[in-house]
């Protein structure tokens, strides 16, 4: 048997990163929470015990199952002011939160990556144009910008996605531009240029694979923020419109019943907190796992 056959097969950087991620128990737990919420959201019509829009004033503000005042068996988390099942609305609300976050972060990641690659690699007027646009968009406080756009476009799921994407792509763009600026001086990019590869080929085939892990980390961090933004806009009445359930609008609905029915506002708020916390912890774990610099220095 030769020496080469005894050597363990080399582990790819992605494999190493996944190993590091799996060794981080907090991150694994956070990922599990996100996965469970995502599964609940995807299969909401099958998982939710009732129709989230089914109102019945006889069930109005019915208490959760553990409370003594609970009068409606089968409505475990109670009902809202229109007698709609809280549990079903929370499950369907997860659908809105996660779908908006996934769409916004996905579209913003694609636009931000392309703009960042172009600005960082081509430099010149492309870089000036993209950088000034990024600076200008960063000149608005996020919530003010989103509220301004929603005011003009009107409420609704598609508009909320558009309003958030317009601001959100700049965060990916800044990271990708920085990474591309560093990458364009590397030997492998020099070699590709010397071989006569086109700028498009170099950007998409050579540099892009090397900037994907920071994009992934930024995307997961931003996802948490987008969920809070969507909930905030829905809370103000500028997001998803009734009767569609959204966690933010559910918190707003319960504001008038804080004394008699605390659960109407409290439960959707807790859902936002748990999901955002889980995404933040998962993204911290991802960053630690995928950023080799952290491990070289430790």
């Amino acid at each position: 048997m030769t020496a080469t056959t005894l050597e363990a097969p080399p582990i790819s950087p992605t494999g190493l990163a996944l190993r590091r991620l799996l060794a981080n128990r907090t991150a694994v737990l956070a990922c599990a929470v996100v996965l469970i919420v995502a599964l609940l959201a995807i299969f909401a019509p099958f998982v939710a015990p009732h129709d989230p829009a089914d109102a019945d004033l006889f069930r109005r503000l019915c208490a959760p199952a553990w409370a003594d005042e609970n009068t409606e068996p089968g409505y475990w988390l109670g009902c809202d002011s229109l007698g709609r099942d809280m549990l079903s609305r929370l499950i369907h609300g997860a659908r809105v939160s996660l779908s908006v976050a996934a769409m916004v972060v996905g579209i913003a990641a694609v636009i931000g990556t392309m703009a960042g690659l172009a600005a960082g690699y081509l430099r010149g007027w492309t870089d000036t144009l993209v950088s000034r646009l990024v600076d200008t968009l960063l000149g608005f406080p996020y919530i003010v910008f989103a509220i301004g756009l929603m005011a003009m476009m009107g409420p609704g799921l598609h508009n909320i996605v558009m309003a958030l994407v317009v601001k959100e792509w700049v965060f990916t763009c800044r990271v990708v531009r920085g990474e591309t600026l560093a990458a364009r001086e590397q030997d492998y990019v020099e070699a590709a240029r010397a071989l006569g590869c086109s700028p498009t080929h170099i950007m998409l085939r050579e540099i892009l694979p090397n900037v994907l892990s920071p994009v992934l980390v930024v995307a997961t961090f931003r996802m948490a923020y987008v969920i809070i933004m969507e909930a905030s806009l829905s809370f103000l009445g500028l997001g998803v419109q009734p009767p569609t359930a959204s966690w933010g609008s559910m918190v707003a609905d319960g504001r008038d019943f804080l004394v008699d029915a605390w659960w109407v506002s409290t439960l959707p708020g807790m859902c936002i907190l748990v999901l955002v916390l889980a995404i933040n912890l998962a993204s911290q774990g991802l960053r630690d796992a995928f950023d080799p610099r952290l491990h070289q220095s430790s």
Partner: protein
Amino acid sequence: MSPSRVLERLLQLPVVLLGVSLIVFLMMTLTPGDPVEIMLADQRVTEEQVAIMRRDLGLDRPLVERYFVFLRNAVTGDFGLSFFHRRPVLDVIAERLPATIELTVFALLIAVVVAVPLGIAAAVARNSWLDRVLSAASLFGVSLPGFWFGILLIMLFAVQLGWFPVGGRIPFGWEVPRLTGFLLLDTVLAGRPDAFLRTLSHLVLPAITLGLPASALLARVIRGSMVEVLNTDYILFAEAKGLTRRRVLFLHALKNALIPAVTVLAIEAGGLLGGSMIVETVFGWPGLGRVVVESIFARNYPLVQAAVLLYAVIYVGMNFFADLLYASLNPKVRL
């Protein structure tokens, strides 16, 4: 930040402000619906009158010309009439802005009062339970939806315990002569200690809602920079000289550790101003943010446009101020 970078940022400032004004102008212009029809929604007018009004408002001019007119008017503070209030937009903003600034300043104060001791303590007791609690709390702070946190505070401290009022800026029926618009200051100037205390009690919950999550980030920054400073040679030298721990911490380390914190604070101030929109809605705080949200539903676009521009200009200004502050506080940078 090097002096050349400061100069670069200074030169970028007008470009960014122009870009911000262009985006705000386009937001308004590309809005579906005719502003004249919105203004005359409940009035019977002929087509001729509509055409005259469109001409008076300059809506029949080319887009580029309209942008320059908007820019000129914005510089002079002329944002037109607030449809809803039937008064100049600038008057409404001037009336509401002090309440927002008052709230933001108190939120910043809370953030500093909470963050500075916590950040120092966590840095001194590195990797201790306190450090871990602070780390968890800061993550919790950034994950907490502000509007829900406000509602929880109302539920606990206003509804259940009755320690603070549910909302508003001053008890219903109380009158304080308006001198500056900053109600706390006005109560002092009017010699009304009773009104001062009541106004302060109205301010506590909204300021905590806005300031406490901000303190989480600030405490992390202070902790990080303090740890860095405590590892430097000059601190080691100060300790070797036999100076007391307290003297080393507060006289030598803290001064340098606070440089990045002050910068973050200036940036946070701009962010809090934006965040106050949500908090004002939750607490019925009669500031600019609340009137903007109300104006959206009333389709009172001139006010929304002016307020968004104002928030952005303040935000850009605060970011620039943060850069300057960093450059002037950092002894490595000579301007």
